[in-house]
Each structure stands twice: as C-alpha cells, then as structure tokens.
C-alpha cells in the first residue's frame, strides 16, 4: 500500500535503536510476589482507597475510586492480602504517593464482578462509556488521561474523525508495534467500541512507515470495515504527539491551550488503550496489566513484557537477565519524554510505556555551554515556538518577556533540547517558565 506517507512541520530525526526488541514476541512477565499499586496513576484527581490493611482482594477488584469526573478507578492486579496502604515512591510524580501494597497468594482468583459486557452491537454508547469508566482505562501512550472523559466530548463540539495513534515515535520502545502485530483484531474491536461510544463515523489507524509489518497487519484487520482505514505517517519524532498526528493526517491544527483535539472535531487514542477497552468489554477484566518494553544497552535480554500493574522495576529488570554494567540513568518511558528515576524500587503503573537502562555512552551528560543562536531548536519545535528566547529570558527571571514567547503551548516533546548543540536544558527552562507563569496567572 504505497500511499505517500504524511508528516507535520518541525520535529527531529532520532535514531530509532528499536532493533533489539522490535522482533521479540510479547512475553508474559513472571507474576510478582508483592505489588504496589499507587492510587494516582492518571491525570486528574487521585483516588481514595476502598480497602484497608488486612483485607483480602481478588484480581480485578476495585481498590480505589474518586467521585470527581476527571479520574479513573484503581483495581487489584493480584489476589491476596493487603499488607499496607501507605505512601510509596512513584515513577512519574517523583514524590511518594499513597499506594496499596498487596501480598500475592499465587491463586490469582478473579473477582466475581469481572463478567463480559456482551456483544458490541447490543451495547449503547452510554453502556460502553460506563464500562470504560468502571474498568479504569486511561491513555496508555504516556499522558494517562482518563479515556472515559476523552470519549464524552460536550454536545457543542461535534467529532467527525477518530485517530488511533500507532506512531510510537519514542526510540527504543516497541510495545505498541508488537501489540499491532500480535492482536490487530482486538485493537480493531477496541477502536469500533470507542467510535461507537463517541458516535463518530470515520476512523483512521495511523502507523509510522518504519513499521511496514504493522501497517500490513492493521490493514488486513480493517479490511471488512469500510469506515476504518490505515494511514502511513513518516517516521519522525514527535509524530506520536496528538496535535502533530492530527496535523499530519487531517491537516488541522489544534488551537493553543486551553485548546483540545475535540475543538477541531477529532479524538485521538493510543493503540494500547484500544486493546484495554476491547479486553474490558469482551472479558470484563479492568485495566490491571499492560505491555511495556524493558530495554537499553545494559539489559542482557531486552523484552516486551505483559506486566501486572504494580510490579516493581527491580523484578522486571531481573527477569530480563539483569544488567551488564553500572547504569547511569533508569528512565520510565522513552528517552525523549521519559522520567529519570532516583530509585528502582518503583512500580510499573498504567502510564509506564517502557523501562530504559541507559549507560554512559547512550545518554549525554555534557555541561551546557553558551547558546550560539543556531536556530535548530526553532526549526525542531513542532509547536513553532522559540525555546532559546524562553530560556534566555527565564534565566534572567524576566517573566514578562518570557510570556511573549508563550511557553504554555509547549508539549515538552524534547526535540529542541535534543537538537541543541550547546546541550542547554531547554525543556527544563520551559517547564520552569510554565510553572512560574501559571503561578503568576499572567501566562498565556
């Protein structure tokens, strides 16, 4: 299917370094003895615990929920006794978060509430949204935004296109790629469920052209659904960004914050999210496990693992043959947007798309030098910003001048800092500017 691959302006060419794991089948991770399940694994209000020390829980049983609309309930991924409900280190928030610690009894008894939700055609959009909300499904691309909120746009914002994000533009990570190869039908079922929930006609599955096998697999899977199609997009980072995918495939641009994709009539979901929705409807099992890639030059046998949520990084790294050297950085997620960890005693959560062990050679630890105004960060920025000025004025704390370059538009994809020959921490300064301007309420 030689359709011309679409792309978006800006962005950077990154070395994929996916070769070590892109041909490995997804393997089921060894069941953990204990799991630590944080009550805040999504964007939005954290959940309140529904269980206490000593309770016995079953697989799929809800152990945390929140009354607020923008939230997603938390479920147990193992059966066993709750040994503690206490703050534990968190891979994304870099501070301790209230978590439920469960000692597994090895039985993995399934909770009675886990029952298939029935046939897709008989389910009404409301029932599908309710199923998604109950299953605690969030965006698995990395943002972890509650899917139930995303699929219920307000009336005055009509949606005319649904994009499935199969770009996976982060180097090293291959989870989505493997998922598309091994379970295309499950994904298509999930896409149809999401589209029915939103009430949108047209669905496009977008895959980067560096994964031709995935494009073929998905094309075969959508063959008998006329309203679904597959679009090849050129492999360029950050193609996986929501706004960049919409611009590349549909040519529309989401307005600056607080603009959302729904403002241009589009909803974008990740491949993993679609699979989780399909599982929730077909088997009734809530989001208790996910596929992630454990890789990096120091990992002896990198792998794509289907992991029960709450398994600690240590266990996952051990079952991949351990490390062949002293790691400099351990990153939760991809190298471009992932978060460097200060300890390995953190659990894999809904938003963890990969565990990356980087050696001295992989990462770059040089000191920053003077900005030589080469303009590469301006050319690289997919949001058409000028990072060098944000940094220059932020360093001098001139927030009035910083707000003129609207740091709030930044999606923190890291393209600018990637390209910067002076190794300046541009993303760090933009994050500081965002916080500073938000605090001052003056920022756009």
């Amino acid at each position, binding site marked *: 299917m030689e359709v011309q691959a679409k792309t978006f302006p800006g962005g950077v060419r990154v070395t994929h370094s996916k070769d070590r794991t892109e041909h490995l089948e997804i393997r089921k991770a060894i069941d953990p003895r204990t799991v630590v399940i944080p009550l805040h694994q999504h964007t939005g209000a954290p959940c309140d615990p529904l269980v206490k020390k000593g309770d016995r829980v079953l697989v799929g049983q809800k152990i945390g929920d929140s009354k607020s609309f923008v939230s997603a309930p938390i479920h147990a991924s193992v059966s066993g006794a709750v040994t503690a409900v206490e703050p534990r280190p968190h891979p994304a928030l870099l501070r301790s978060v209230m978590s439920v610690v469960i000692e597994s009894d090895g039985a993995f008894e399934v909770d009675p509430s886990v029952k298939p939700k029935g046939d897709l055609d008989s389910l009404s959009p409301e029932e599908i949204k309710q199923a998604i909300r109950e299953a605690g499904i969030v965006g698995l691309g990395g943002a972890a935004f509650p899917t139930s909120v995303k699929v219920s746009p307000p009336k005055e914002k009509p949606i005319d296109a649904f994009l499935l994000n199969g770009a996976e533009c982060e180097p090293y990570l291959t989870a989505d790629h493997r998922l598309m190869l091994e379970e295309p039908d499950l994904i298509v079922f999930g896409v149809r469920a999401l589209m029915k929930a939103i009430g949108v006609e047209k669905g496009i599955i977008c895959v980067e052209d560096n994964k031709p096998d995935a494009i073929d697999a998905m094309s075969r899977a959508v063959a008998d659904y006329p309203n679904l199609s597959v679009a090849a997009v050129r492999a360029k980072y950050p193609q996986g960004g929501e706004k960049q995918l919409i611009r590349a495939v549909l040519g529309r641009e989401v307005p600056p914050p607080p603009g959302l994709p729904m403002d241009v009539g589009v909803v974008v979901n990740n491949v993993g999210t679609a699979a989780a929705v399909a599982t929730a409807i077909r088997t009734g099992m809530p989001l208790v496990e996910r596929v992630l890639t454990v890789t990096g030059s120091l990992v002896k046998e990198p792998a794509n693992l289907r992991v029960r949520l709450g398994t600690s990084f240590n266990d996952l790294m051990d079952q991949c043959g351990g490390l062949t050297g002293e790691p400099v950085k351990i990153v939760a997620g991809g190298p471009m947007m992932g978060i460097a960890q200060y300890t390995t005693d953190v659990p894999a959560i809904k938003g963890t798309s990969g565990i990356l062990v980087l050696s001295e050679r992989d990462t770059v630890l040089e000191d920053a030098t003077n900005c030589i105004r080469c303009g590469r960060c301006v050319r690289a920025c997919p949001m058409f910003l000028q990072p060098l000025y944000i940094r220059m004025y932020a*360093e001098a704390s001139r927030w009035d001048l910083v707000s003129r370059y609207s740091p709030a538009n930044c999606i923190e994809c890291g393209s600018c800092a990637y390209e910067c020959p002076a190794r300046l921490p541009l993303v760090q300064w933009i994050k500081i500017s965002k916080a500073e301007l938000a605090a001052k309420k003056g920022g756009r």
Partner: protein
Amino acid sequence: MGELHRYFLIFFGALLVYNILLIRFIGLCSYFGISTSMDTSIGMSLAVIFVMLISSTISWGLWNYVLAPLGIGEFLYIPVFIFVIASFVQLEEMFIRKTAPTLYKAMGIYLPLITTNCAVLAAATEVAKPGFLKMSIAYNYTLPEAWVYTLGVALGYSVALIIFAAIRERVDFAPVPAPLKGYPMAFVTSALMSLAFTGFTGLFGL
C-alpha cells in the same frame, strides 16, 4: 527629474549617511536614556517626528520671512529658535492632551523631554542656516527641501533609537564584564552601530 533627485539625496543623506545620532552625535542624552525599552523608544520617535517637522517649518518661516529680511538673523537666531520651539512644545502638549488622549498616552509624556533635545534644535537651525551637514550638493533650503530634510533627520533619529532599543534588549542580558555593565556597554554597542553606519560615507557622492 533634477528636483526629485535632490529630494532623494537630501533625505538619504539626512537619514543614513549623516545620521543625526550615530554620525553627528546630536540628541545623545535622550538616546541613551530612552532606549532601555522598546515601547518608550517608539513613543519618543513618534513625538520627535511630529515636533521636528512642525518646529522646522516654523523656524524656516521665521528665518526667511522675519529674521533674514530684517538682517538681525545672525544675532538673534539662537534665542528666537529656542524660544519658539520651547513655547510651541508647551502649547502642543496641552493641545494633544485635550484632543487625543490615546495619542497623548503614547507620546505625550515625552514632549517636555523634547524641549531639551538637541536634535530638534539642530534640525531647526540647519533648515534656516544650511552648512552643518557639509553635504556635497549645493542647497539653500526651499520649504519642500526643508520638510524632506527634517523628515530624514527625524526618521534617522527614530531608526537609530529603535534599532538600539532592540539591541539593548539582547545586550542587557549578556554577561558583560562588570566594569562595562550599563552605560559603558551602551557606548561600545553604539560604537559598532556607528561603524556600520560609517559604511555609507560617500554614498551617492554625499
């Protein structure tokens, strides 16, 4: 065509080749003070263009119809010009404050500053008693030439001021050596700006 060509030469000479700030060094007091921010620079430029055009017209009129015929020009031109300009600016400030408050907000506050601005007086004097620009074309200013000349000087002032404001917005954030911080660095930057303007000496034979 000769007339138009002369206008072009006079305008070009006043704007670039003999830029009033960077080549003739006139009006520097306000130049260094105002250029710390772009908005004030734009406001001041508007005010200077407005005041200079009108005060030059008045001084031209005074010289050709009052001072020169009476032959007292040589002795009284300084007090007369400065008095005219000072009182005119005072009048004009009241006028603008009443009729155009927004315009007043944009440039009004600079009007009193202009009374002590050398550039306005220099332009007014030149229009009356040519010779200060030492341009190679022979000229004794007719009214249109006076306007073209004054417009050239005023725009030259504004261009230099606005460019300098943009540069200072960058140089003020540079780690300049401690003793040079502030005004000394402004002087050195102006030196290099003047170097760029000196590239135009002798252009069009001026």
